[in-house]
Structures are given as C-alpha cells and as structure tokens.
C-alpha cells in the first residue's frame, strides 16, 4: 500500500500485486488440496504439473477435464484493462467490480455444485446430465485465486468512492466479512438448520416448535419444589455471573491502578491464573474443598455438629467455579479501560471541588461504561457457553450447554434438539448484546484526545478502597488455596486417598532420555504437548490480528450492515464448543473447504472462537481514543493503514496483550470444540487429559495441567515483555516523579 499521490498509468501497485497472486494461483500452484503441507514441496515431484492430484487449475482445464474452471481465465485477464486506466476513471472501478464479483462468485458456485460425488444437487444432474468427473477440497491455488478476486472487487468498490475511496479499509472489511462468513456463518447456520429437519429428512417448522416448547427447557418446577428448565437455569446463572465477574474485575482493576496497594504484581499474576487453568481442574479442586467429603465441608460440619451435605452440587458450585474462572476476563477488559480514563477529567472535577467519592461516582465510573458493558457481556456469554464446570459441579442443575452436548453424544442422538437448544442460547446472547447496546446508548466515552492529557489518576476514595481491598483479599486467598491444592495433587499417589508424595506422574508424562542422537522424548504426554504448543502459537497472533482489525472497522468506519456484522463476530463465541465442533465437521469435511483431520481446522476454530475477545477489548479501548487523532494523522498525509499502524496500534497495547494472552491460553485449554476436531496426528493436551481423567489417572492429569499452567505463565510473561507497556500521554513518567 504505497502512497499513490502521482496518478499515472500503471500506478496501481496493489492491484498488480493481487493480479500476480491470482495468476500464480491459477497457473502455477496445485489447485486442489495436496496430501502433505504445500511447503514440503513434495508435490513438485509427484507428476506436477499434469498429474490430477497436484495440477494447477489451468492444466486441469487445458486437458479438457474440468472445463468448469475455464471461465475463471476471463476474469483473470479482464483486470489487465483496468491497470491502464486512471483511478478516477469510472471504467477502472467497473472492470474490477465485474471481474472480481463474477470470478469470486463463479469460484464459490462451482465449489458448492461439484463435489466428491459429482453434482451435489439432484436438479443439476437432471439439468446438465450426469457428470463423470468430481473434485476434492480447494487447495493453495484456489485460495490465492479467490483472494485475488476478492481484493479486486474491494478495490473496485473503493474506486467507486466507498469509505472515501480507502483501499485498505474496504479491503479489510471485505476480507473480514468473507472469512467470518466462511468460518462462522456458514458452518453454524448449516448446523442450526437441523433444528427444522424431521426424522424423514424433510424440513418442517412444527418439529422446531415441538422441541422448542419442551418442558425440560422452560419448566418452572423449581418454584414448587421440583426442577426448572435448562433455559431458565442458564439465563439466571449467566446474569449472576455477568454481574459478579464485572464487579470483581472492576475491583481488581481499581486496586491495581488506583491504590497504593503493595502487591499489585502478585494480584495481577493471580488474576491471570484461573484463565490459564484447564477447565476441569478447578471443578475437581472445588469438590475436594466443598464436596460431601471436602475439607471445608467436613470442618464446618464437625464444628457445627451437623451432617455434611452435597450443597456444592448445583447452582452454588457452578457459580463459584465460573466466577473464579471468568473474573480474569473482566479484569483484562477493564484494566485497559480504567487506565485509559483521562486524569484531566477527574482533575477538572476535583478543581471544581468535588470530593474523591463524587469524582469517582460522577466522572470515573460513567466513563468506564463501555468497559463495564463489554465485561458483563463477556461474562454472560462465557457462562452460557461454559461446559466443563456445569458437567463436574452441576448436580441436577441442568444448563443449556451440557444439554446440548448430551443431545448430540448422549443416548438420544438428537442433533435437531441440540440445534434448537443452541438457538435458544443464541437468543439469550442476542438479547444481552442488544441490552448492552441500549445501555451504552449514543453517548461518547472518548477521553484520549491527544491534547493536554497529563496528570495522575486520583486514588480511590477511602469508603470504596476498603471494601475493594477486602473483596480482593478474600478472592486472592481463595485462589491461592485452590492452586496450592492443585500443585499438591500432582505430587501425591492418588489424590484424596493415598497421600504419599511422588514424582511418578511427572515421570510418566514428561520423561526424556539423553542419547547420542540428542534428546529422546519418552514421556507419554510430549506428543500432544508439542502439538498444542505449536497450534496455540500459530493461532494466537492470527486471532489477535483479526480481532483488532475487526474492532478498528467497527469503531472507526461506517458501512452498511455494521450491526449485523458485529453480532456475527460474536456468534462463534456465544455458541458452545460442542456445537462449533460438530458444525465444523459437517461443513468442512466435504469440498469446497475440506480441512478435517488437519492442524488447520484446529487453528481456524481457535481463531474464530477466540477472536471476539480481541474484538471486545479492542472496541472498549478504541472507543476511548478520540477520532481527532486519526484525523490529524490523515491530514498530515498518512493513509488509513499507516494511521492504524503508527497511531492507533501503539495506543492499543493493553488490548493487544489481552487478545494475545487470551487466544494463546484458550487454544491450550479449550476442550469442548476440540473433542470433535482432534485426530491421530493432531491430538491436543486437553483431550489427552480428559482421557486420563476418564481412566482414573487423576495424578497424571493434574500433573499435566500443572505443567501447562507453568508453561502458560511463562508464555504470558514473555508476551508481556514482547508487547511492552503503553505510555498513554506523559502520565507514567510524571507519576514516577510525583510518587
């Protein structure tokens, strides 16, 4: 994206670049997916370029076999005529739009029409006659050509003057919309459609209503001593978790940024702990503390001389576990926001004789609203989609996510019911999303204007500081107890039964031998460990990038369908992993996109599942940055890509860090989506751990979890070091001299 201030013929470097990419994809690279990675170049030796498995599209079409690829040539040649024309020439834009749209559309249409068994639709076979040929999943060549068409189209649209003719912004919108459509909308809608499928495989609305009005879903028996429906349970739980995690997250953010609290670093590290803990461990630790035979329950029962109960199973246990697990997310979102509130506003209030409490209540708190709303939304959604904690601690408290899982894998084999439940869950999420929008309204929460932004944040008023300290203290103590127990559990023979100390679980999992040829990884866990690390390391930066670019588009640009687009980006996050897992197999096991059994499907599922956190954190931070910052950058001659890179990105470091950390960690600890996507070659740590737990190897499972926790802590520290801290304004330097 070089500056195009001198408009001459051939002055379309971006267009030329994409044309070359498109041509390379069509004429040089294997069109369909090759068995090994494209980068091993083994395809070069397997009969390239004429063998069917590795041939580029051009050779397929040349041989007269796959003639349906031929029209693409026309759309690849067409843009050559646009190259010679000036950007302001309407014909330039027109050619690009026509070639891009038709090329892209044709590529998609042929991909969906012709599959591994010839025609995919009966009516096509009867219309065009039977097809002898077939095609497999698209490969590198098809992908490059498709991107070329896509960016030709966006450049054409930009050329027509959309978004001030900004090639970067239109391209970014086109790109994000396309990948979200391909990897979020397509698989999920595909899966949800099964809510309307009857046993005879025809579509019917009555089937949906029959399953929708189920008593197990909406029953209100809990007011009469019975049980309530899963929908009500989920809703109430999610609202409670949303409120409580936001409140706790805010408390910690305030303690860390606005008090003289000495052990800020410890607290910060502690808040990160639950987020990096594989899901079922917290549940197990809570059972060992509060279960029927738990230490705390026993102690209290003996002390008060009452008989111990199973009180923790049900809503109380799930609530405790979820608050423990999701508060850090609220904290990560809120800390950026709390730091971002400009001290000048607060100083102005204090100058006008407001006391600390008034300042906090009328200035600081309202300015944090976007952060609070986003934190609540994330807590709500996480609670709705959480699967591990309700499974371990739920007792008879049924929630939607576990019901969905067992509708698919349980004794009923009822995918339709799973889809109906998922639709209910999505309905709740949509409602929360709109409630959040309504609460924020159209007010401006901008505080970082780049002008006169100096000063120091005032400390918290005492009346607030003490309660916040107490809450943070209790929580810290609780977290420490849980984690001491987990580490202890990994060193004992059989947790809770034989408490002799041993290293054997670590040896079984992570032993290695030094031989002449180097290190020999003999432990049983290494395979899944390296795979997990690799996939998480690949997925994290991609997730953060996609998330932040999306946030930038949502806060800074206006385009048609923006609200629907924003909700779409939240969709994959709001749906329980099980549904995602199954929908990914249904959608991506068959051409045109055939990626099951590869590492790619894991990376892709992580990107789209965790992207929303990047989006939320990015939106919360960016709505604090004044647009005049962008404008001054643009006025000084930078284009929007440069503005994004040099102005906005550096101010977003907390959001970047949050997105990176979260996506890395989630890729290492996710379970429910992964269960369906792992394969023999790509087995993930969590699926290995679950296998061990099912086999009663608690020690081994916990030892593995402990190792993962340590590895993730190191990774988080490393990321923090790499991304660095932001100096917003001149504040930090000043506060150092002041304090």
């Amino acid at each position, binding site marked *: 994206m070089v500056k195009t201030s001198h408009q001459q013929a051939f002055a379309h470097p971006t267009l030329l670049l994409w044309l070359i990419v498109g041509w390379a994809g069509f004429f040089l690279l294997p069109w369909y997916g090759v*068995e*090994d*990675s494209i980068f*091993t170049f*083994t395809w070069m030796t397997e009969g390239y370029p004429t063998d069917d498995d590795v041939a580029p599209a051009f050779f397929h079409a040349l041989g007269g076999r796959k003639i349906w690829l031929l029209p693409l040539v026309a759309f690849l040649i067409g843009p050559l005529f646009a190259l010679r024309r000036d950007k302001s020439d309407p014909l330039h834009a027109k050619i690009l739009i026509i070639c891009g749209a038709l090329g892209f559309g044709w590529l998609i249409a042929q991909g969906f029409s012709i599959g*591994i068994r010839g025609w995919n639709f009966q009516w096509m076979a009867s219309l065009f006659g039977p097809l002898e040929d077939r095609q497999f999943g698209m490969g590198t060549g098809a992908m490059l050509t498709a991107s070329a068409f896509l960016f030709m189209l966006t450049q054409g649209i930009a050329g027509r003057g959309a978004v001030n003719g900004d090639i970067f912004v239109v391209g970014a919108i086109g790109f994000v919309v396309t990948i979200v459509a391909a990897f979020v909308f397509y698989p999920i809608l595909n899966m949800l459609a099964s809510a309307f499928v009857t046993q005879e495989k025809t579509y019917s609305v009555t089937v949906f209503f029959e399953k929708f009005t189920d*008593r*197990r879903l909406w029953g209100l*028996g809990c007011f009469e*001593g*019975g049980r309530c429906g899963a929908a009500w349970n989920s809703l109430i739980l999610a609202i409670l978790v949303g409120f409580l995690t936001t409140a706790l997250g805010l408390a910690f953010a305030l303690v860390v940024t606005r008090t003289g609290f000495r052990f800020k670093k410890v607290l910060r590290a502690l808040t990160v702990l639950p987020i990096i803990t594989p899901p079922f461990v917290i549940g197990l630790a809570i*059972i*060992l503390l509060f*279960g*029927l*035979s738990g230490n705390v329950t026993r102690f209290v029962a003996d002390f008060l001389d009452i008989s111990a109960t*199973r009180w923790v*199973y049900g809503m109380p246990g799930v609530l405790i576990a979820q608050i423990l697990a999701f508060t850090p997310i609220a904290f990560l979102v809120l800390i950026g926001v709390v730091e971002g509130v400009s001290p000048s506003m607060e100083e102005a209030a204090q100058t006008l004789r407001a006391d600390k409490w008034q300042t906090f209540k009328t200035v600081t708190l309202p300015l944090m609203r976007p952060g609070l709303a986003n934190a609540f939304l994330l807590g709500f959604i996480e609670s709705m989609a959480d699967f591990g904690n309700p*499974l371990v601690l*739920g*007792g*008879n408290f049924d929630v939607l996510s*576990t019901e969905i*899982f*067992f509708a*698919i*894998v*349980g*004794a*009923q*084999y009822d*995918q339709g019911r799973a889809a109906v439940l998922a639709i209910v869950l999505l309905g709740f999420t949509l409602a929360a999303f709109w409630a959040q929008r309504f609460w924020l309204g159209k007010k401006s929460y901008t505080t970082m204007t780049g002008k006169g932004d100096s000063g120091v944040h005032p400390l918290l008023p005492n009346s607030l500081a003490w309660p916040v300290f107490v809450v943070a203290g209790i929580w810290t103590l609780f977290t420490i107890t849980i984690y001491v127990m987990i580490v202890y559990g990994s060193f004992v023979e*059989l947790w*809770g*039964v*034989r408490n002799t100390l041993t290293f054997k679980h670590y040896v079984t999992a992570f032993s290695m031998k030094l031989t002449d040829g*180097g*290190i020999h*990884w003999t432990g049983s866990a290494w395979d899944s460990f*390296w795979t997990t690390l*690799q996939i998480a390391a690949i997925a994290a930066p991609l997730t953060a990038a996609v998330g932040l670019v999306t946030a930038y588009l949502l806060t800074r640009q206006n385009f048609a369908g923006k609200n629907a687009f924003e909700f779409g980006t939240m969709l994959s996050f709001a749906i329980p992993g099980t549904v995602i897992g*199954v929908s990914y*197999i*249904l959608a991506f*096991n*068959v051409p045109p996109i*055939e990626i*099951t*059994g590869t590492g790619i499907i894991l990376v892709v599922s992580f990107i789209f599942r965790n992207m929303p956190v990047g989006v939320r954190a990015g939106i919360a931070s960016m709505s604090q940055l004044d647009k005049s910052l962008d404008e001054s950058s643009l006025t000084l001659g930078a284009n929007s890509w440069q503005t994004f890179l040099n102005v906005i990105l550096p101010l977003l470091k907390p959001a970047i860090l949050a997105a990176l950390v979260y996506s890395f960690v989630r890729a290492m600890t996710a379970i429910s989506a992964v*269960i*369906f996507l792992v*394969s*023999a*070659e790509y087995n993930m740590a969590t699926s*290995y751990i679950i*296998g*061990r737990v*099912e*086999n*009663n190897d608690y020690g081994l499972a916990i030892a593995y979890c402990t190792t993962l926790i340590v590895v993730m802590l190191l990774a988080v520290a490393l990321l923090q070091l790499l991304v660095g801290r932001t100096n917003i304004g001149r504040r930090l330097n000043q506060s150092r001299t002041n304090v």
Partner: protein
Amino acid sequence: MGRLHQSLLATAAALMVSTSMAQAAKLTFYCSAQEDWCQSMARGFEEATGIDVNMTRKSSGETFAQIKAEEANPKGDVWWGGTGDPHLQAAEEGLTEPYVSNMRGELNDWAISQATSADDKTIGIYSGALGYGFNSDLLASNNLPEPKCWKDLLKPAYKGHVQMANPNSSGTAYTTLATMVQLFGEDGGFDFMKALHKNINQYTKSGSAPIKAAGRGENTIGIVFMHDAVKQAVSGFPIKVVAPCEGTGYEIGSMSIIKGARNLDEAKKFYDWALTADAQSRALDVKAYQVPSNKGAKTSPSAPDLSSIKLIDYDFKKYGSSAERKRLLKKWDDEVSTLPQ
C-alpha cells in the same frame, strides 16, 4: 528458548517425515474404549501386520456423532469399542458396512447375536454386566446395611445415597432402564424407577460418573457397569462391587466397519485380528475387566465372573432400536423425572 525452538523444529520435521512416509498400508482407527486399551490395540495390530494405525480415541457417543457428521465423506475405517447401542444405531442408520468374519466360530453366542440383530453390521467384542458399587467407608459411617439386590436400593434408609446417570444422556443409564423393564415387566420396571427416584441424589450426565463420585467419597452407591466399579476398587478406592440378586442386564461392547472406509481391506484385517484370543487377551495388560467375546481369551481373576452372575436374556434387537428407546425415554421423562424427590 533455543532448545525449545529446536525441538519444535524437530517435531515439525518428524511430522513431515511421518506423513510423507504414510504412503504404505494404513488404517484409521476410531476407538471408544479407555485410552491405554486403545493404544495397546493400535500398537498390537501394527506389530502383527505392519500396517500403520492412526488411532483417535473418543467416547462412543462422540464417535457416533463424528461418524454421522462425516457420513458424506468418511474419514475413519473401523470403529472398535464402546457400548453396543450406538453401534446398533449406526447400523440402523446405514453408517456401517456388513461383514462376516471367519473368526465367528471362536466367539461366544452373545457376540454373534449382536451381529445378527444388526444384519452383520456390528459384532460383540466384550461384554459387561450391570450392577452397582458402594463406598464401604461412607456406608459404615452412615450406619447403613450393605445392599445386595436391586430392591434393596429402594429402602428409605438409602435416601440421598444413590446415584445413577440420566438415561437421556448416558447409554449406561438407558441399559439400566431397559434392564428393569425386562426384569420386572414394563409396569414393574417403571414402579421400580419411580421408587428409586426418591433415593437418587443426582442423575449424572456421564455413565461412569456415579462410581467415580463414590470413589472420591462424594456419593455412597453408584449404579454402573460392574467392570467400571471393579476398576475403581483396583485403583485403590474403597469400593465394593455388587451383582444384584434378582439378576441383571448387560452391555455388549461392539465393533463395526465404517461404510465408505478408504482402507476397507485393512479394516477387515483389523476386524479379524481384533476377534482373536491373543488380541482380546490384551485387555488384561491394561486392567480392563470386561469379559472378552473370544472363548479362548484370558480373563482377569478380578473381573466379574459372568457365569456366576444371573444374567437376563437381554433383547438387544428390541431395546437397541431407536423407536423403542425414544418411547422408553419419553415415558421415563414424563412419569419418573417429574416426580418430587
């Protein structure tokens, strides 16, 4: 970090080498038994035949969901292990391939009857009887008598001490329901479930969860397959296993070849091999206490001896069909689960 980086590269390189060498005969093996048993079967088959095995372990419900989702473009070849119902369901939905192995002569009758009830699309590889286990420490501290029969569990003294899985989510619990219906007749069976409901403290989601909770001291009595209870006892938890006096039902762990398998010949080889006495004796090494279907396979002394347990004549064809299952589950939902406890 240098070493970490190196080893990452090394694994990456190893992955590439292993995939490019995988041109030889191979088999994609979906396994629904416990992890180490699956590993043992995969490695054993590799040693016996030299065929590369790609093994993926998932629970039987998860594997069924996966095979169904992959129907249009199957990725797996053979599915081994896991309770029989999902295998029967897969046969009913045409997801698996009929195959008659030469090994049938060496098998127990129940393994063959599993095959005939599914038009040869599946076959029995092991079986396990339903029963229950209790935590002897908790039973003693609550001054409760040791239960011996199904009907013992209905005594008011056990209120809040019994756990079973939810038949809607677990195959084990569905087997329990179907067993009671066959043991006491449909009305009697449902009366039993209704009376039991009063004593249940929780319907768990997964089938073996009740006995695991009992092992950790979170529950007193768990209704599960007996081999799951034996496993807890052998692992060192204070669990005692009970074979109910009235007689009991059982499951048949099964094996099926996936329809459209890419390596059909290798899948058949595996099928035959998995039915041999040698392959089935491998269960002993990994502490699996199910009863093997090959008459010549070795069994563990800890395993529940099926000949000493009164087994009912379980009608797998009828109670494994989806119509009967839907009917019973709906009846349980309407008449049992709604009752106050």
